[in-house]
């Protein structure tokens, strides 16, 4: 595929600026909006044209969108898959068309991918769990607010979190409920859980939207100071909440960095240079 990259680079040199297609899983979520923005900024800086399509979390739409990008004859494809399995045929289709594929944030379970630029959601879940367990003093009752059931982010983050918690004696998950990645539901669901569980030491939510809702519920119930809140994604609102001391921590995946690295990696490759097949974007924990 190195050859493919070279020929694509030649073609690009012949016919105006390089065009990179970016398929985003959803632009209804600020995390991916930031990812897109990071990519756009870097593309603008490098003089590359970026064509963005939005799958709205629908794998079928994603397949169509990628088909359309291929049709447009983009030089490289940056895919942020809605699902690692469902994206495989699309990756193969791009392979057949000779377009190099890069995956960002979420990987593909098949097809030829030049490079994968991401931070590891499972590791993020583990990181959150370790922090939370420390913060509550090694033992206690915790709650898990899950994302939309069946989505890969919910699966991976939950897996990482549960791996650690299940291995730690003294920590008990007293409630695991879905709030669909949604702030409103985070608020309502956690309000109900607060009602059901007189004793809660910590909460982990699969994304910041839900933890912010939960925070709101706990504050309204006057129990926010007894509970440690850990979110995921480090969206602006959450970082602000950490700064205010309301939120204990949020796992930062640096979406802007992911997007930016995605574009620059693709450009590097198209210019004929070698790139690593896995480009990790470090996770960090945003705390006060």
């Amino acid at each position: 595929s190195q050859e493919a990259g070279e020929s694509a680079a030649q073609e690009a040199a012949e016919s105006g600026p390089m065009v990179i297609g970016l398929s985003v899983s959803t632009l209804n979520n600020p995390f991916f909006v930031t990812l897109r923005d990071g990519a756009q900024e870097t593309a603008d800086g490098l003089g590359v044209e970026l064509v963005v399509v939005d799958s709205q979390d629908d794998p079928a739409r994603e397949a169509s969108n990628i088909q359309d990008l291929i049709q447009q004859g983009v030089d490289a494809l940056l895919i942020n898959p809605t699902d690692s399995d469902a994206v495989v045929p699309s990756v193969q289709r791009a392979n057949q068309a000779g377009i190099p594929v890069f995956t960002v944030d979420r990987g593909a379970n098949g097809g030829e991918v030049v490079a994968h630029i991401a931070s590891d959601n499972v590791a993020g879940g583990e990181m959150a769990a370790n922090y939370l367990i420390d913060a509550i003093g090694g033992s206690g009752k915790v709650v898990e607010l899950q994302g939309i059931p069946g989505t890969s982010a919910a699966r991976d983050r939950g897996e990482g979190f549960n791996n650690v918690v299940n291995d730690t004696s003294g920590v008990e998950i007293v409630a695991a409920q879905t709030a669909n990645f949604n702030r409103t539901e985070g608020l309502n669901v956690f309000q109900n859980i607060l009602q059901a569980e007189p004793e809660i030491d910590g909460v982990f939510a699969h994304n910041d939207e839900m933890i912010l809702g939960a925070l709101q519920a706990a504050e309204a119930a006057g129990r926010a100071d007894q509970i440690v809140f850990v979110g995921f994604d480090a969206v602006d609102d959450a970082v602000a909440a950490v700064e205010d001391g309301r939120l204990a921590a949020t796992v930062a995946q640096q979406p802007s960095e992911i997007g930016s690295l995605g574009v620059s990696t693709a450009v590097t490759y198209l210019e004929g240079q070698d790139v690593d097949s896995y480009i990790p974007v470090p996770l960090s924990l945003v705390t006060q």
Partner: protein
Amino acid sequence: MIPTVRRIVVRYSTFLILAALMLLFSLVSSRFLQVNNLLNIVDQSALLAIVAIGVTYTIISGGIDLSVGSVVALVGAVSAGLIVRAGLPVPVGILLGLVFGALLGLVNGLFVVYGRLQPFVATLAMMAIARGLTLLYTQGRPISGMGEAYTFFGSRLGPIPVSILVLLVVVLVSGTVLRRTPFGAYVYAVGGNEETTRLAGVAVSRVKLGAYAFSGLMAAVGGIILTARLWSAQPQAATGLELQAIAATVLGGASLMGGAGTILGTVAGALIMGVLANGLNLAGVSSYLQQVITGGIFILAVLLDMWTKRQKV
């Protein structure tokens, strides 16, 4: 002369809108009218078209089916599960999936006919239940590894996507059933005037059950195609597809009051939605704006359709 032109405009307004949109997009992007892109559009619209054909049956019969999106996901998961987990041969897994889809549709019909529930709510409840069952069955994880015999339905035969061939078969069968058989005639009749149809000695219950079962079957076909296209059954697949299917059906000239609608119209309606998505992508319109434009064009198209139909022929 003029009246003939008018009659044609009224009769084929959906197709004219489709043609106008295609003309528009071909001006915007030179790649739009390439054969490969046109094949892409049909490939991309096949799922919607097939599911919408099922919904068309229920709408003509005076009902509606909101459960199709969930049934697509559930059948996809079950057929994939039967093959991957239970090790059944692919044709058997697919066949059982289709039967299962028809059964789910039949259950909708039973609630409508014997439970005397309004179709909108009966199928709304089924929408929630089938989605829940999908999550339960998959435990929230996609199922993959069905093998090439299965993913064949999402692949291409030469340049031709297999989904288009499936769509053709579906259109042929469902169109013939609707236009040529007594069952099809009764679907129209029930939707046009249920009491009269009953008085004429037609077994109205069976006709309605048939329409819902057929809708379930079409959703099942869609489920197989989608799963094959994605090489995996996704628990959250096809969310929101029901409203798109209804929109396609209505764009195709069906009346939500029942009694009117055609298969070709529905297919054209689905193609309009597909052309819009594809054309806006090729034109590089931002996804937010795409939604605004899609909503606007949808309303305009229906306005135009209503307006032409009101002009006396």
